[in-house]
């Protein structure tokens, strides 16, 4: 199998790489481009630790070929927000104690962000369903759902005020 030159916008930065056509997006992000905030928990699409946003939608980067991301936007947890300009989900995860070992956190926050884009005011059951592809072994999920729900509740308040 051959190689292909690709350009991916990672958190707004154009990054170029020559990749094997069978290489996964996860492998290229971590090992070619140094984007190590994307985690490898299983490499088989079962755990969700490698979740990134591809043009705004959550995908398992271990099940996505790097060449499929050519010319597209990849957002990692660093692109979602920073200590200087935090995303509300990031602030809420910290405030609720939804982060323990943190290995699932980057994928978990991005799955939550993807949910909020499609459904800004999800119920707790909808939140649980939306993050059911992201395994967490530390928290038992309660505080993660709390953290996402608070952001949803704030969105609901804003919605109500606007109407």
């Amino acid at each position: 199998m051959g190689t292909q030159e690709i350009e991916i916008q990672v958190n707004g930065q154009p990054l170029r790489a020559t990749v094997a056509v069978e290489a996964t997006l996860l492998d290229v992000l971590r090992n070619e481009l140094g984007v190590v905030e994307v985690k490898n928990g299983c490499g088989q699409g079962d755990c969700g630790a490698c979740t990134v946003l591809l043009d705004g939608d959550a995908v398992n980067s271990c099940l996505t070929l790097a060449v499929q991301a050519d010319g597209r936007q990849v957002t990692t947890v660093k692109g979602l927000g920073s200590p200087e300009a935090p995303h509300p989900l990031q602030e809420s995860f910290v405030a609720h104690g939804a982060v323990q070992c943190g290995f699932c956190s980057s994928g978990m926050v991005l799955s939550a962000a993807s949910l909020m884009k499609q459904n800004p005011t999800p119920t707790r059951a909808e939140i649980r369903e939306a993050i059911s592809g992201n395994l967490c072994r530390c928290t038992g999920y309660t505080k993660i759902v709390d953290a996402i729900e608070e952001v949803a509740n704030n969105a609901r308040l804003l919605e109500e005020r606007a109407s």
Partner: protein
Amino acid sequence: MTDADKPTKYRLIGLALPRHDALDKVYGQTKYADDFTMPGTLHAKVLRSRYAAARIVSIDTSAAERMPGVHAVLTARDVPRNETTSKFGQTHSAGGFEGLYRVLADKKVRYMGEAVALVAAETPETAAQALRAIDVVYEPQPGVFDPVEALKPDAYRVGEEDTNVVCSYKVRKGDVDAAFARADVVVENEYRVPFGDHVYLEPESGTAWIDEDGVLTIRASTQVIEHFRDVADILRLPHNKVRVIAPMLGGGFGGKEDITVEAYLALLAYRTKRPVKLTYTREESILSHSKRHPYVMRYKTAATADGKLVAMECELISDAGGYPFLSPWVLLYSTVMATGPYKIPNVKVDAHAVLTNNTFTSAYRGFGAPQVCFAYESQMDAVAAQLGLTPLAFRMKNYLHTGDELGTGYALESAVLTDETAERALAALGEPTKPRSPWEKIGRGIASGMQSYGRLVYLHDSSRSFVGFELDGTVVVRCGVQDIGGGQTSSIAQITAEVLGVSMQDVTVYFGDTALTPLAGTTTATRMLYMSGNATLKAARAVRDALVTKAAEMLDASPDRIAMADKTFRVVGDKDHSLSLIEVLEACASDGIPLSNLAQFNAPAREVKESANVEGQIHPDYTFGTHAAEVAVDTVTGQVTVLKLVAAFDVGQAINRLSAEGQLEGGTACGAGYALLEDVKMDRGRTVTCALDTYLVPTAADLPDVTTIMIESGGGMGPFGAKGIGEPSSTSSAPAVTNAVADAIGIRLTRLPVSPERILTALKEGQAKRDDAVSRRVPELA
């Protein structure tokens, strides 16, 4: 807000403060073991045995060695000291408790996935090709895969000894046979629990290199940086020429207590003089690394008609897998805690750990306590049913209290509030949920547990911590803890800030580096808050005392009238006189008064008794609590839906409320997985659940919210009266769920996990035992 306005007696202790490490993690800034790269790094891979039981006839590595890009191919003959008896991060010799650790298989393989050879190459792909070029000739052996079979005199011998028994323990108290004869109710059952995988989200990983001073340095995801001693012994290097660094871990749960990649990396880096990296795949992690011990447990429990427990007899057989590792310790925990948080005058426990050709078993959250808790809490419900008592009423008549003796004769010294945890856990379930269909059954269960915190008193455990002010008023802590995600370093920062009158943001904790941080022992055994929290508290108080003494002298007041908070020293009751922290620090520095302190905390210590009879004190202390669960069972599909989960624990004193709740919630979820889902299936030693789509752990959609109830007796041995909760929070969760299932369907399943298949089989064929049904016996021991 001033100190006086705070509702608690502490400034910071017990508050729900955001953890400092959570900030870094949620912004993607934390680096885990696999995230570090060094120039010129080689990639390692491990050749693993395809057989569970075989003799190695020959290994030919020549073709692999000749491949371009391959820098080293190592087998057992290349390991300077291939066999070591690991002390598992301990400095104290503990006789029979040291487990055999073999780096690479030699002559015989004892489980499928055992490491046979190592390769280091320029790329992972080249390393993988090299593995395929290694020619190993095996002579398959019959093997033995069931611990009861392995006990038989003519069983296949797993190791080199003439028995498969790793160790045996017994507890004897009173006369169980006489008590059984007199009792009004006797219930006997056999229970079985499966292999479990930890499923930390971060697979095993590390990098090793020789540093500029010639020190072999390993950065690895480990709960025990003090394996540097074992690595040094394996390479026959002086202990002070090996350094281990643990960055933040993506979970541990006991699975990173034994050596994982460290020895392989050390051997390859030492041979190649290049940095070498190795990260397991998920399949490799499940296939080849340690598992939770399966047990076969026969329990016989007796009570009087008025509901008093009079006797408990337990026979425990644990499957140690191919190598002992921590099996002797795990079995000892099970032996001591076999009868649970109950006062029983007559106790007989016989316990055996047995080698098989299954994947080796070792530490896993709970360390032998969850297995026996499933058995004794199932028994408690079965006996209660026979007596016509509710599960709560029967338990309330029998809980241990402070001063009561365990089966070993040790009298409990600290607070024991199991009664309160049970009443509150059950009450928190609230109104019963109504079934959604005629074929749905609702059930409720409770289970209480006891679990040690701190290590075996035989180990003479200790921890060290350094606390010091910088001249600008910020604080540095150096403490060799491994932070596995439970808030270990964050709690240390919070304790330090409390004592030194600064904010948590003023404290930096350097952790997990054998060269730079004072050794603090393992992050295992629910010991880190207890041990390193106490060491840190001691060091911080010494620093505070020195500064307060100086401030008192400068303010011309007696030291006991000086208040140190918010970076200011004040004379109590005197608003006019105060000093800033900086002023006092400068005065101390000028006068040669140390601004820092290195303190050591020692746990209670006892000498090892070289006897199978377990007596007296075995652990420093215990944590007690109760789980409650409500479930819905679909009797058509066998599917269990957990509707409510409650964890009520005496935590002694919460240090960080968010972290303490997080431990209770996460531990409870883990136990629910053990009850309903988790099962590493092996077919004659071959693991068939090698991925997370076949080894199932709870997802967010599988669980309800966990309700936590924290009782703060202040009666623990940790800092500020804290008890440990990392492991106890999980132990009694599984039997609460299975007792709820039994309540729903009227049939008690005696085997974990309580899967839909087993529930349907029980319902349809009626073969599973009801509470009052006949018993089965484990085959007589050889």
